[in-house]
């Protein structure tokens, strides 16, 4: 009885992965079969003309995630360093609780904050036609992934042994030299995992992005133009999934977006996992 339950549970966990990827592939198959990998290069997405180019959404997804990381990495690292290396103990847990609070806010609430605070601010301060753009999505995502980076970095810094800290101090290294030459390099594998997890989260975030990104299927022009409405993979799925009939090419194309998203994020989380595996092996 116990045995049956254990084995069934383990089997279910395995089946979930197989079933998920299998059905995504099966449902998106007509799409890949129809156009091969060409749509990855085209930005034209017009379901009624049977044009399903994914480039605009892929570029949008990566831009938004990159903006998010560009802001969240320095801030998150600084916050973690500050909490472990500058502030006394009680403050450390307070900052951590703050981050856990931030991490616990549901993404749709971030969407609400973005829609009502961020967009009007961007629109009036940058004199834009509309605040709906990649920058808004990136800023919002940076707040959402900040806790991941901060908490993972904090853990990694705490794990640097006091022995190494003492050695560095006895060598007469100053605070910043210790930080740059000893602490951060030692903690790097953990920090790197944190950054990769944050990247995966940013690429897969749906609700908040969908509300602020503008949903325009257009490749940014010029390529660094982040102040125009754009599209991400997740917001495309969220916006159009309801209206595409099961079995149609449109549905298939949206499933292809999902499959692509799954494959990208799986790769990223595997990279993060392999990294963290190595640390635990190397640790005495």
């Amino acid at each position, binding site marked *: 009885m116990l045995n049956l339950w254990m084995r069934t*549970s383990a089997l279910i966990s395995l089946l979930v992965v197989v079933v998920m990827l299998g059905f995504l592939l099966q449902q998106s198959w007509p799409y890949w079969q129809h156009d091969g990998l060409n749509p990855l290069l085209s930005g034209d997405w017009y379901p009624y003309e049977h044009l399903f180019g994914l480039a605009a959404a892929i570029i949008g997804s990566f831009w938004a995630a990159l903006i998010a990381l560009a802001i969240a990495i320095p801030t998150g690292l600084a916050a973690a360093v500050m909490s472990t290396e500058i502030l006394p103990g009680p403050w450390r847990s307070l900052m951590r609780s703050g981050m856990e609070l931030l991490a616990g806010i549901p993404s749709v609430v971030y969407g609400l904050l973005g829609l009502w605070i961020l967009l009007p601010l961007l629109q009036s301060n940058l004199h834009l036609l509309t605040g709906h753009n990649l920058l808004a999505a990136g800023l919002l995502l940076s707040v959402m992934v900040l806790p991941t980076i901060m908490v993972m970095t904090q853990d990694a810094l705490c794990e640097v042994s006091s022995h190494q800290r003492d050695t560095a101090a006895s060598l007469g290294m100053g605070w910043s030299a210790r930080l740059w030459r000893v602490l951060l390099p030692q903690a790097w594998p953990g920090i790197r995992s944190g950054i990769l997890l944050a990247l995966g989260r940013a690429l897969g975030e749906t609700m908040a992005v969908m509300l602020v990104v503008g949903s325009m299927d257009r490749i940014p022009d010029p390529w660094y133009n982040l102040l125009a409405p754009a599209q991400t993979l997740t917001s495309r*799925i969220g916006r159009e999934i309801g209206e595409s009939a099961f079995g149609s090419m449109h549905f298939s194309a949206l499933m292809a977006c999902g499959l692509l998203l799954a494959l990208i994020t799986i790769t990223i989380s595997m990279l993060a996992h392999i990294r963290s595996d190595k640390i635990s092996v190397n640790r005495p």
Partner: protein
Amino acid sequence: MNERCAKTLTIMLALPALLLPAACLLYILFKGIPALDWAMLSGSSQDAAFGSISALWPQITGSLLLMLGACLLAAPVALGGTLFYALAANIRQRKALLGIMHLLVGIPPIVYGLCGLIVLVHMLHWGISLLTGMVILAVIILPMLLMNSVNAIKRIPSEKTAAARALGLSNGQLIRRVWLPAAWPALMTGLLLGMARALSETAPILFTATVFSGVSWPDSLFSPVTSLQTHLFYLAQEGANAEAVDIAWASAVILIILVTALSFGASALRNIRMNG
């Protein structure tokens, strides 16, 4: 001097991380609390026309039902998987199980939603329903529950297990008499965090489990529900309707209170574990 410079710079950079949690929370409370009391008390969603939605009770019920269902479905599987890991698996199987869990954690929730849409809504003909939402959310929280309980079992000192074995306890007795008493706070912590997660996911249930209005209590597991998360999403877009936006903020407050209560419960249990 150089050191002070570096420290000041670090603090400047870290400032957003210090201020943002407080700022976000205060702003949401500031907007939501004034709208809270009458949003909770007046009318019912059946009586309300579009745009003048009040009384969030049906939404709260829906969210809680989805959350409870997800936990009841995921917890046995997570526990079973953990026991498999601890009792039956060889090293390769253990690695594979944890690898799969890491893989599942990385997949964005909306992808789970898509798979649920294909398999549960269309292929099994469950339709847009409470049960579909429960199963999808259960799969989403499964990896975090399983990894958490594996860690909890790993943290039990191996001497305890060895002693129990030496006394000739069977697997079942070992689990009931030794592991569960030692690990229950950690298991409950994981469960509470899983509940908080299930409560805050929106995208995967948006097109598989919920509708805009008309539900006060679902007739069966195969009826759709309304939920706080998706309601908030619809109302957030009604910028021209001040009342709807107020209720959106009120929903945000309720949602955050529920999620925070669960996380506080989790950290309280974590402290029991550390002290005990």
